[in-house]
């Protein structure tokens, strides 16, 4: 199995204070990875570096056999899509217009949207169940709708990799599940590589097939969710005591924290 991403001794700090202190790992095509860890551990920073949004790191990051720094932003955006925690538009774009922005790296038209752009947009909106809000103003949508529209925009980029930074943090329980159901389907049916930063360990355990825990800029543990989620590991990662149980539906483990 060849690595899609390969990190070798990645180090980074926004100031002189180091945030990431020597990270090395590989992520293969088709993986569904959850990145967990306490606040300030460097999860989002790592995700943004891998997305090509933060430069000036030390060490080596390779994507698809080429150093990340050698990719230009447009070529990278055709392969990697990024979904942030929350999106706010300064101007009243409609949901469809937002999704169409995902077609930008393909530069199919200067003044008009090409038929291909429109087709991809329609498909991405069907996939994320957002066709019903197509003509509505983005900022007036509910949190769940907004996040699915942004996901549709990311899918319109036709990426191989989807990087998500706490994508369900503002969503209610139903919409959290709905959102991850879509990700699971994309991963299974299209082979989309998914890396998601999340604080919801149980949600991550239910959907991801690999879990990487990070604390103070170093990897603590990396493995299948049921291997990572042990009381000892949870103490090492979050400094909490937690009980770990089997899910009644047989889909891995879940935890109950108790100090």
């Amino acid at each position, binding site marked *: 199995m060849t690595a899609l991403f390969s990190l070798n001794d990645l180090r980074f700090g926004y100031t002189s204070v180091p945030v990431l202190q020597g990270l090395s790992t590989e992520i293969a095509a088709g993986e569904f990875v959850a990145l967990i860890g306490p606040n300030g551990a460097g999860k989002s920073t790592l995700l943004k570096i891998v997305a090509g*949004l933060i430069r000036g790191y030390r060490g080596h990051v390779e994507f698809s056999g080429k150093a990340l720094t050698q990719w230009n*932003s447009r070529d990278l*955006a055709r392969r990697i899509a990024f979904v942030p925690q929350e999106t706010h538009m300064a*101007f*009243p774009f409609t949901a469809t*217009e937002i999704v169409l*922005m995902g077609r*930008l790296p393909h530069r199919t038209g*200067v003044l*008009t949207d090409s038929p291909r752009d429109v087709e991809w947009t329609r498909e991405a909106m069907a996939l994320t169940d957002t066709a019903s809000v197509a003509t509505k103003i983005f900022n007036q949508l509910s949190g769940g709708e907004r996040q699915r529209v942004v996901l549709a925009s990311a899918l319109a980029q036709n990426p191989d990799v989807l990087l998500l930074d706490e994508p369900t943090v503002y969503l209610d329980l139903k919409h959290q599940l709905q959102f991850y159901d879509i990700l699971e389907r994309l991963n299974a049916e299209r082979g989309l590589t998914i890396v998601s930063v999340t604080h919801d360990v149980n949600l991550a355990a239910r959907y991801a097939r690999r879990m990487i825990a990070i604390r103070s800029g170093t990897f603590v543990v990396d493995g299948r969710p049921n291997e990572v989620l042990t009381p000892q590991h949870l103490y090492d990662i979050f400094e909490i005591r937690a009980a770990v149980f089997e899910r009644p539906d047989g889909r891995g483990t879940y935890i109950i924290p108790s100090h």
Partner: protein
Amino acid sequence: MTAARFAVAVGLCAIVCLLVLVLAPWIGSTGVTWRNVLAGVRPDRDIFFVARLPRVLFAGLVGGALATAGVLFQAILRNPLADPFTLGVSAGSSLGAFIAIWLGLETVVLGIPIVSVTAFAGALLTILLVFFIARTGGEMPTFTLILAGVTLNFVFFAVMMFIHYAADFNESYLMTRWTMGALDTADMRTVAGAAPFIIVSLLALMWIARQLNPFAAGEEWAASRGVDVRRLKTICYFIASILTGAVTAFSGPIGFVGLIVPHTMRLVLGPDHRLLIPTSFFVGSAFLVMCDTAARTMFAPTEIPVGVITALLGGPFFIGLLKRKRGNL
């Protein structure tokens, strides 16, 4: 964006603009007949070709340039309240003009008033100053950009106030008059000099207009859509600033056009920059020509400053639009 929608919206705005440009020179305090004008009978011919036509065309360029600059500043600063003067260009330009007036440099060289030359120099200096102050480590964060612009605005206004205070009555009047804005300063040569630059800028902007859309969600969001954020921002900053500086050097600061026209077009057509840039140019152009026509005819033979009209006409119209389409701003 379909080709039909683009063609209809931009086409309609262009036709309105053209109609206004064609009709406006015939309107004025002194009646002219098209027979006399075309036959070259004086004074009709001179009134039309020397007094009115350059002024109308210049007003069209100024209005279009300011509206376009307004769209760009609002886009790159992600701020609906930004206008062409937010980052200090007009303050720098006015300071340049004040200095020339104070030093008594009211001559005209090669058809260009010295006041306009120093005003343009002041604008250029401000543009570079803001750019270098705002740039930190190769980046140009929006926050420092706004802060640098606003701070320079204050500093320049302080210097202008000092010069104004030190100046004599006649100079002081000229300075006050400058800050009100006027469009009678241009002749055909100014128009011919400014037009190619403005048209080339507009075409360049159409090429990058689509990339400005994801800026509305932030620079990171735009970057993850493959936009070279730093380059696009720098290009837009300089085009918008130089457009503003070039026209205000001759017209003085004319407010409201650069704020109200982009908003109006956004309320009517939506925020897509592929439509917003060209339609704002044409409508801004038509709007300022109409305002200037009103300014020179309403109390004829006395003229009133065109900035008074832009605010008095534009303000209530804009408020009405806001009331009707609330929440879509």
